[in-house]
């Protein structure tokens, strides 16, 4: 009897909580939508107020109304690509070592260390960049200034490494042990098995790792802003990597504090934000599409 009286109350409570949880579950879609809406709201007017020819010119000089975003896009590309090139061999090498070569106890030491790197705030890396790395590069590479795209790329590489290591290591770990045993049974050495069997089997996961690493480098703000010298200029030649640049993220961070709300300058900074949003959207959707496809194929093969 008591149970029966309790039951409806329980049911109602359950329904209420279930609906609350559902709403929370949908919230991520709402937030992505809100972010897009507010970026567009503040940034799109730039396309109307600022002439397109000015936007795609090569000079960024907001005080005189010159809003050429090409140098900024170039700066971001230069730093991101160099950072990826630096991070790739170290990130993938470390992931392969942790997953395939290292004995268990070394693994247990290495993984927390990589996590420490992931936990260090980018402003701290930027600080060390200014005080230690910048003077070192100036002396070591004999440059007029150590605040260069290269310095930024080194720091960004460091920031991208934990992402690459953890995602790539996960990918290698999901390769069934049978693959490795088969490789070894055929007489291949462990080294040959790693490169001939395990890494190719994990290649989509590794690709995802690389893409997420690129995404991480692309969106990084503070460290790059502090060490790349803040010079929004197009490159003069091949040695642009050893000259100061300015990325899209750094431009927003360093100028948004000083602009008047609603001014052209303000709108263009939001427009750059829209570009960054879309870039990260493309990178992340591609990365997740690649890994889903791989998972589905793996399920087919193994079943």
């Amino acid at each position, binding site marked *: 009897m008591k149970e029966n009286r309790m039951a409806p109350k*329980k*049911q109602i409570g*359950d329904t209420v*909580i*279930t609906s*609350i*949880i*559902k709403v*929370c*579950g*949908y919230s*991520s879609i709402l*937030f992505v939508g809100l*972010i897009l809406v*507010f*970026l567009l*709201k503040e940034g799109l007017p730039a396309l109307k107020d600022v002439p397109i020819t000015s936007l795609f010119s090569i000079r960024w000089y907001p005080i005189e109304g010159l809003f050429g975003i090409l140098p900024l896009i170039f700066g971001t590309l230069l730093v991101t690509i160099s950072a990826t090139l630096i991070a790739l061999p170290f990130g993938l*090498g*470390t992931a392969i070592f*942790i997953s395939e*070569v*290292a004995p268990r106890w070394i693994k247990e030491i*290495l993984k927390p*260390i*990589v996590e*420490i790197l992931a*936990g*260090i*705030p*980018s*402003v*701290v890396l*930027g*600080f*060390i960049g200014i*005080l*230690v790395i910048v003077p070192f590069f100036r002396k070591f590479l004999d440059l007029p200034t150590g605040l260069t795209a290269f310095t930024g790329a080194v720091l960004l590489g460091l920031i991208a*490494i934990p992402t690459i290591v953890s995602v790539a290591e996960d990918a290698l770990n999901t390769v069934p042990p049978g693959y490795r045993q088969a490789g070894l049974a055929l007489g291949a*050495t462990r*080294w*040959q098995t790693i490169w001939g069997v395990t890494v190719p089997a994990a290649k989509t996961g590794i690709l995802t790792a690389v893409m997420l690493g690129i995404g991480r480098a*692309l*969106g*990084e*703000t*503070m460290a790059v802003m*502090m060490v790349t010298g803040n010079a929004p200029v197009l490159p003069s030649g091949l040695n642009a990597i050893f000259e100061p640049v300015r990325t899209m*993220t750094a431009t*927003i*961070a360093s100028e*948004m504090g000083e602009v008047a709300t609603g001014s052209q300058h303000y709108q263009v900074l939001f427009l750059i*934000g829209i570009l*960054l*949003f879309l870039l*990260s*959207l493309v990178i*992340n*959707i591609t*990365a*997740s599409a690649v890994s889903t496809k791989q998972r589905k194929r793996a399920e087919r093969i193994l079943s």
Partner: protein
Amino acid sequence: MSSLNEPRRKTRIVEGLGFSLLRLVTLVTVLPILGLVAYIIFMGAPSFSWQFLTAAPSNGMREGGILPAIIGTLYLTLGTALFSVPLGVAAGIYIAEYAQDNRLTRLIRIAIINLAGIPSVVYGLFGLGLFVLFLKFGTSILAASLTLSIMTLPVIISTTEEALRSVPNSFRVVSTSLGATRWQTIWKVILPQGLPGIITGIILGLERAAGETAPILFTGATFFLPELPTSVMDSTMALPYHIFVISTQIPGMPIKIQYGTVLVLLIFVLGMNLVATIIRSRARAKRQW
């Protein structure tokens, strides 16, 4: 005989060289991390004193302590937790326990992946547009905390989902067969089992929020405050932004104070990291399934 062994020996040499190379690459990756942390501790520790931790900056930041920045970061982290923990855990529960494998769920997943990938400075722009200007919160602790919360959400959602998924299905079956409703099963059986994983995720998410600068640049951080903030509508100093200020904006900044401030933030952030690691490994050791 020797001609047969020749290629074999060669592959052995290649393997040895290859493994050494991998070891070297790993060392080159890992040693700078340890060196960095050790260097900051070495350079920052001498500036630690009661006064450094409990006084406000004076003489244009060049003397005194960093109390307002420490308190500010505590406020922002707490504020972030207040919004992102209930929302993120609930969303994680939804995806792990309720969501079906349909188009809507896939859309939610894509949204979470994208939230995780959006550059932090874009969160700053969003916070400025929505919280500071549109909702008229001004540059305030409230606006900055909300901005950081949304940035932290994907971490908390994904780790909650993962933690709940790892609870074996038999727990759900047994609880339901004893007459528990779905929510009772989740609340009394599944959540307690997944709790260590969820807490680990929350701490890692908040750790990231505590160290972020770009999202609070235009939503709540301020250069200098003579007094501590008294309401959520006040702007605040914060450790990460303070580090940016004293390392780029103030000429002649004493190096001791700079490293001391960096060390405080590092202890704060890596301390959270350590707690998360301990919770995770203890739960793993105690787990019976």
